[in-house]
């Protein structure tokens, strides 16, 4: 089914359900507003920035991610339990859901298309190093790669390594530089030459 066909089919179902009183079309606008404006990777980036600046928060985030983020009352769901895994010089973490497309919506927003497509889901558990090169990410052979397959209701987020030179940036400045992909684990943050 092409995107166009699916769009028509969705429109058909929407109109039927509205007629039958099973769907309030206004709720579609609410959902658009929620995920377009309030739920997105800026939430996760804020957590990462804070963890880089506040060692106590970082320890709490790594020890019990669910408790650490409770104060922010993120919307968006899909995070019954949050586990934050830390990248280091020795270990690089990367997250997937091979059986469907589980993803920590509340902190990263809606998952990118590639996260939900068969290529990523099939390959990243088997050849994560090769998959990361699709993203331009080349890991040293001696760095261990840890793949997390989110097969239950625990959700995983990666705490990336802070690049050299970012120590002087404010948390607000960091939020725009900490990418979604670095928190999924398919990118290693680096200072971009400007």
């Amino acid at each position, binding site marked *: 089914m092409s995107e166009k066909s699916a769009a028509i*089919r969705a429109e058909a*179902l929407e109109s039927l359900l509205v007629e039958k009183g099973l769907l309030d079309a206004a709720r579609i606008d609410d959902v658009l507003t929620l*995920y377009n404006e309030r739920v*997105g990777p800026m939430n996760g980036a804020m957590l990462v920035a804070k963890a880089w600046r506040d060692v106590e928060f970082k320890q709490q985030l790594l020890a019990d991610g669910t408790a650490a983020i409770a104060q922010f009352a993120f919307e968006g769901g899909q995070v*019954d339990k949050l586990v934050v895994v830390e990248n280091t010089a020795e270990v690089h973490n990367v997250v997937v859901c091979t059986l469907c497309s589980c993803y920590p919506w509340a902190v990263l927003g809606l998952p990118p*298309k*590639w996260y939900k497509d068969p*290529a990523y889901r099939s390959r990243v558990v088997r050849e*994560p190093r090769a998959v990361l090169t699709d993203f331009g990410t080349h890991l040293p*052979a001696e760095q261990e790669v840890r793949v997390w397959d989110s097969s239950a209701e625990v959700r995983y987020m990666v705490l990336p390594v802070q690049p050299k030179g970012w120590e002087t940036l404010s948390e607000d400045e960091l939020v725009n530089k900490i990418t979604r992909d670095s928190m999924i684990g398919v990118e290693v943050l680096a200072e971009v030459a400007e």
Partner: protein
Amino acid sequence: MDGIHDLGGKQGFGNVELDASSIEKRHIHGFNERWHAAVFTIMNSLFAHGAAANTDHFRHSVERIDPINYLSDGYYGRWLGGAETMLVEAGLLTQDEVNNRVLSKGHKVAEPIAARPAEQSPTFAPRSAAYHPTAQREPLANPIFAIGDNVVAHSLGGTGHTRLPSYVRGISGQIIAAHGAWVFPDANAHGHGEAPKHLYTVRYQGADLWGPNAEESVVLNIDLFEPYLELAQ
């Protein structure tokens, strides 16, 4: 079920196609299309009107989509297929109503639709009055395994929903975390109650999973429910 959705470790799906956010390395988020949000909202309405009894029940409806459609339809197309299945099975819509409306919107007749394998619609007990913000529950028994145990997972068989992917079955791994007891998807998807089971993170070595040609220094962590596991010999 050992369905097309069980993609972990399968080969031949080509390279990852990056999105604009990955390429431009900046935050771009939200819905790409209005109809994606419409499907998202329809999915919410399934739960509101009882067509989907719970998340596990909904996930299984997506797994039951015809395999070609599963691979072709994209994420929101798959949700749409699952939603149609659940609405028809719940008796809230008839298949004819859906098909006729699709045709009236200008859809081609020949377009394949999500298949609906005949399944006896299970009966779900009314939701518990207790408010559960998550799928974590009080355990019904003590955990059988402990961190450090070596375990092997085996399929429970059958045609139902399960969260044990095939690629780890029969391979020895080590428990690295215990998460307490959680709603058991294999039961909950089919109206057999929440049946809480202990959940563990199990760590596998890449070479054990993928053989002599595995990438070096790769480990795989996955969350598995206690009934899938036995101690490794």
